[in-house]
């Protein structure tokens, strides 16, 4: 891809971001529910006190003025102050982000590491017992609600077998000074192996719960695409040449069969970030998803706006990455 094309793609981001800002802003503003009333809750207050709170939250200005302020501030990287945390929204989000990204990445790894081998196996042993099991399994994987599956895993591994913790990100005996914010990386960088195992034991259940639907989708994509590739002439030719089965499968077939898998995985990673909300709530995972859900109920406008903007940017960038990967894997396609 030329530099010009790259720039063009990046420029395309701008209208998307402006559009997303407008939509989120309008949706939050038009949804019934007054942040000031919610914040005061069940209390007797004077109208003056209510007005003061409204002014402090910046909600006394007309809506178009608020939107203009939001956009001009956002351009400068200022997303305002969270109504509840009373700190810059960017700080609050930045504190929660590493946990969300770490969980998503581990879930992605879990998904890829199980989906690809299973998908390939199911394809080369088409209609075998294994293939059928994998197909039924993937159907279950897509249809099981994450909430229910997570609690099931928790009851089994944490409550009955007591081999994994119920919730949280790491135990409270070890203090890890952050480097990257990813505990699995930081504990290793600090050479603290016991803390690494501790962090790993905490992430296993949420990562499996989060990664399950993606595993199921990727497995089916891999299987279908592998089956298709195996029917291609060049594979038959490679077999006719007398190449070993292993060489045909892994050198010739798999490389091409993985193209759709990789691009679907890149796009699905965006939904992993979104799907975090439920898994983070079930496992008490201190990530962004949970914070956003809480903020929506409380009508914490600045936080929701900034977070949704973040999700949108990530999604667009991941799509872009998927395109790049696609061209890299398949030189016939030009962007």
């Amino acid at each position: 891809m030329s530099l010009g094309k790259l720039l063009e793609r990046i420029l395309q981001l701008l209208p998307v971001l402006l559009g997303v800002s407008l939509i989120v802003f309008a949706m939050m503003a038009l949804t019934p529910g007054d942040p000031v009333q919610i914040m005061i809750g069940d209390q007797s207050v004077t109208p003056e006190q209510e007005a003061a709170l409204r002014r402090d939250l910046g909600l006394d200005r007309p809506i178009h003025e608020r939107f203009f302020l939001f956009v001009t501030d956002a351009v400068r990287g200022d997303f305002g102050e969270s109504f509840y945390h009373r700190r810059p929204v960017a700080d609050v989000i930045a504190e929660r982000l590493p946990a969300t990204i770490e969980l998503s990445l581990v879930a992605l790894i879990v998904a890829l590491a199980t989906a690809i081998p299973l998908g390939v196996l199911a394809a080369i042993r088409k209609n075998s017992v294994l293939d059928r099991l994998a197909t039924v399994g993937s159907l279950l994987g897509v249809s099981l609600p994450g909430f229910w599956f997570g609690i099931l895993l928790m009851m089994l591994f944490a409550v009955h077998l007591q081999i994994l913790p119920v919730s949280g990100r790491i135990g409270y005996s070890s203090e890890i000074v952050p480097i990257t914010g990813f505990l699995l990386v930081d504990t290793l960088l600090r050479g603290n192996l016991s803390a690494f195992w501790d962090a790993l034991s905490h992430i296993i259940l949420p990562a499996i719960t989060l990664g399950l639907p993606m595993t199921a989708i990727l497995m089916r994509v891999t299987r279908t695409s592998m089956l298709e590739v195996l029917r291609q002439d060049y594979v038959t030719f490679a077999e006719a040449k007398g190449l070993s089965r292993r060489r045909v499968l892994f050198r010739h077939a798999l490389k091409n069969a993985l193209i759709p898998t990789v691009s679907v995985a890149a796009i699905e990673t965006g939904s992993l970030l979104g799907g975090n909300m439920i898994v983070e709530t079930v496992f008490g995972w201190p990530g962004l998803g949970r914070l956003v859900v809480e903020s929506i109920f409380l009508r914490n406008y600045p936080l929701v706006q900034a977070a949704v903007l973040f999700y949108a940017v990530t999604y667009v960038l991941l799509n872009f990455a998927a395109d790049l990967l696609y061209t890299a894997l398949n030189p016939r396609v030009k962007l």
Partner: protein
Amino acid sequence: MTRLHRIALASTVALCAAMPVAEAKDLTVGFTLDADTLDPANHRKRETETIIRNLYDGIVTRDANMQVVPEIAESMTQVSPTEYDFKIREGIKFHDGTEMTAEDVKFSLDRITVDGAMGDGQTSPRQGLMGPVDKVEVIDGTTVRITLKEPWPILPAMLPNQQIVSKAFVERVGTAGLATEVNGTGPFKLVEWRKGDAIIMERFDDYYGGATDIAPVGPACVDRVIFKVIPESASRVAALLAGDVDIINDLPAFSVAQVKNAPDTDVLTVNGTRSFFIAMNMEGEIFDDPKVRQAAAHAIDKQLIIDKILAGNAASIDGILSPDAFGASELPAYEYDPEKAAALLAEAGFPDGIDVTMDVEGAFKDTAEAVASLLTKAGIRTRVAVGESAQLTEKWRTEGEPKSGDMYFTSWGNGSLDPFDIFTPTHRSHDRGNSAGYANPELDKILDAAAVEMDAEARAAMYREAELIVNADAPYVYLWVPQDIYGVSKRLSGWTPSADSRINLHDACVE
């Protein structure tokens, strides 16, 4: 491995096991929400206050029976209807070792009550909780006087909601710093706040001991306290059963038996402070007739629902006040009588019954469905419509603006257990929580007078009078006050739940 080696190894292991190991005693609370901020003056959430209360002490606090007792103050005297004096104890230290003075108390209260005192022109969101404070002064070295603009009898009941910060510390770190840094006088010091995950505290060894009226007095029992954030109730129960936490709040009624039957856990309950009721839109064409509202009250078998759905964990009410609240009294009850309900409906001109919709938040759908089926049996054919809290609040709490809708299954919290904070907002014409659209000038007069009446007996009598008026008018169907349910580990001692939903861990111990 030789035999000798084995013996040596075995004896080392035995020796290690026999040696006393100094293990830190941690008490972990599985808690629904993280703190929004650690600044005692800059938040609006009960859960945030529950956490902060273990780090910061207040001028006064509440004992297990919800009585207000001095904490940082030595004594409290009401000088006049608008003046309260607090003699501040000497020798109390902040976590950084500096001594707390009356100036710190004045500074802390000014931060909450003075307009724009939070910096950047912002006013504390907790200002409303302090009522009509005119000024706070230090009148001699150790006495702080709060002067009110007008009498406000519930000041002592509201004061436990505020905590004392160090003036020097706040001036150093600023309001921004106080959001994440702590220098209080409470029984625990902040170790680390893992945002969204946990707040880790350790015992403050120089603690002055806390309220003298609440034994034991002295430093906290446990070495560390961890508030671990577990928002999902099934996960909190799992954490308790797995032994990961020692206390969980908000145990759902349907998990009570499971926690009770487990070998290492138990259930503790306390009367809550939140009254549940059904608002009937008195501006509408159906519920403007008191007979229809009385019919609804007669149609609901409260005890049946308390027993079957709330697992017995609620107290039935016949007025807005909790049985534990100031001024609560026995009131005539609308007995469960579906036939009488049908008769009242017929008298009101609805011999064939009525069709109505009842709004409810998702969390209470089950209960509302049960109520609806009882209403339906008596001829008030009720459809339950689930809405989101913020949306329903806007629809029903219109502060005098026109209202739509028929019925609203809702509740109002009353942490101070004083009628001023629940009776007035829900019943005074056009007030914030008046979702029924009830307007009775006679009642307004009584409520306004009671709000500033200083004589407790006379004040209680006024609320009694108000309750009787409301009882006849029936703007709401008063349902129940649920108990707060906690799950605890059997290794925990010295802690009982408190009606104001605080979890003060100063006196709690773990084995």
